[in-house]
């Protein structure tokens, strides 16, 4: 305890990639912030918001960022921290090498500073119909039961928070391709595994056999390594490869 009080106040250095609007080019700005025990990247950004002064001592515009749940379940605060795409709320300063380099996930359109537009991910979920249609004009009654064993692994897939880290990590998601990315493919596996969702399995498979679908995967397997929720994305992709291949032959042979 005595050693702690005797310590001089530490500073933490940040190098943040900033961008004023979607069209302008990016630049970096450095910040020196007082260290506080247990601080993370979000609390550091809040400190800049409170006192927007950069490392040179000049007044600056506070850094914009996106965040919501602050417990790594919403996916809103994804950014590239020291080269790795991850959630800022779960990035503890104590575990990071300094200076802490923070960049937006440029696979997505940058709105401002660290704020990105993840619309393409939500559009992808719509494209593959990542839901279970149960609405009708009359009561459809109870659906089929889901085996407990299946529910357990399907639950893991349901942890996806559409954070975009897997798309940022994928070398095949870029301006030259229209690859849908790993997240939506894994959701197709989830909804195709559900006993009621299974009834519309072919619609989802056909969406992934369309342009920008599953054929965009190049098996770099970065997605499964980068996923903050530990979702077995490459198993999902391979499983959907299997389902689409089967569907292709079924359609050809008219089974």
């Amino acid at each position, binding site marked *: 305890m005595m050693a702690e009080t005797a310590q001089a106040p530490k500073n933490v250095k940040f190098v943040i990639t900033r961008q004023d609007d979607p069209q302008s080019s990016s630049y970096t700005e450095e910040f020196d912030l007082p260290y506080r025990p247990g601080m993370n990247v979000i609390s550091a950004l809040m400190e800049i918001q409170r006192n927007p002064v950069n490392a040179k001592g000049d007044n600056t515009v506070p850094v914009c960022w996106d965040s919501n749940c602050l417990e790594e379940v919403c996916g809103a605060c994804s950014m590239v921290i020291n080269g790795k795409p991850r959630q800022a709320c779960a990035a503890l300063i104590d575990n990071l090498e300094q200076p802490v380099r923070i960049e937006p996930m440029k696979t997505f359109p940058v709105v401002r500073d660290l704020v990105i537009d993840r619309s393409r991910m939500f559009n992808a979920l719509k494209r593959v119909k990542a839901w279970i249609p149960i609405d009708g004009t009359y009561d459809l009654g109870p659906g089929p039961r889901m085996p407990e064993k299946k529910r357990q692994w399907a639950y893991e897939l349901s942890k996806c928070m559409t954070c975009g880290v897997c798309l940022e*990590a994928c070398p095949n998601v870029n301006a030259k391709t229209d690859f849908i990315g790993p997240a939506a493919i894994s959701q197709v596996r989830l909804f195709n595994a559900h006993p009621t969702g299974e009834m519309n399995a072919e619609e989802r498979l056909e969406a992934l056999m369309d342009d920008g679908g599953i054929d965009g995967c190049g098996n770099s397997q970065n997605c499964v390594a980068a996923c903050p929720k530990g979702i077995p994305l490459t198993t999902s992709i391979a499983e959907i490869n299997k389902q689409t291949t089967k569907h292709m032959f079924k359609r050809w042979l008219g089974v």
Partner: protein
Amino acid sequence: MRGFYSRKIHSLLGVIPLGGFFLEHMLTNFSAVEGGASGFTDSVLWLNSLPLVFFLELFGIWLPLLYHGVYGLYIAYQSKPNLNRFKLERNWRYTLQRVTGVITFIFIVWHVFETRFQVTLGNVKHEELGGLMHNIVTQPLLLTFYIIAIVAASFHFANGLWSFLISWGITVGPRSQRVSSVICLGLFVIVTVMFLVSLVTFRDSEFQTTATALQSLKTFI
């Protein structure tokens, strides 16, 4: 829908027939190790005595090779490697698959021009191919190029087989993908070694010929 089928065909052609031809080529070359110059010539002559050999070549080699090569260049162009950020074994293989594909493409264009195309032009007879190879691999620069190309092509074949198994939904879980990784790595080593041993054998003086056509070709190369 078009992208799905063209990518599936690309993946299939890489294994059948191109992977098959690659292994056949390896065995034919190895006959030079087993049977010397005459053994190699016998193998080449036997292969070219197959019925409908023109069509076997056209549909088993030329057209698949053209499609796989050109579409493969497009796939390589579409990728944005990020090894600097993700130094992972699988990401290395992803990047190397594209690099070795481009190396192999360039090599094959040159190799086909130098050997098979010269046979078509009538500059070289099938019996003289061993001598032609001898002239090539006794030049250090060309030998180096051949060694690089062999390693690249063998890697591209073995790793391509690994990703073929995933793309067609055969190896799904992490364990099967790990096992197939080990098998494909073993295949890469075996194929590379067999091609390299054959290559070195072609340096043997028994492959030397005095055919005038070959001499003129040598100066041309």
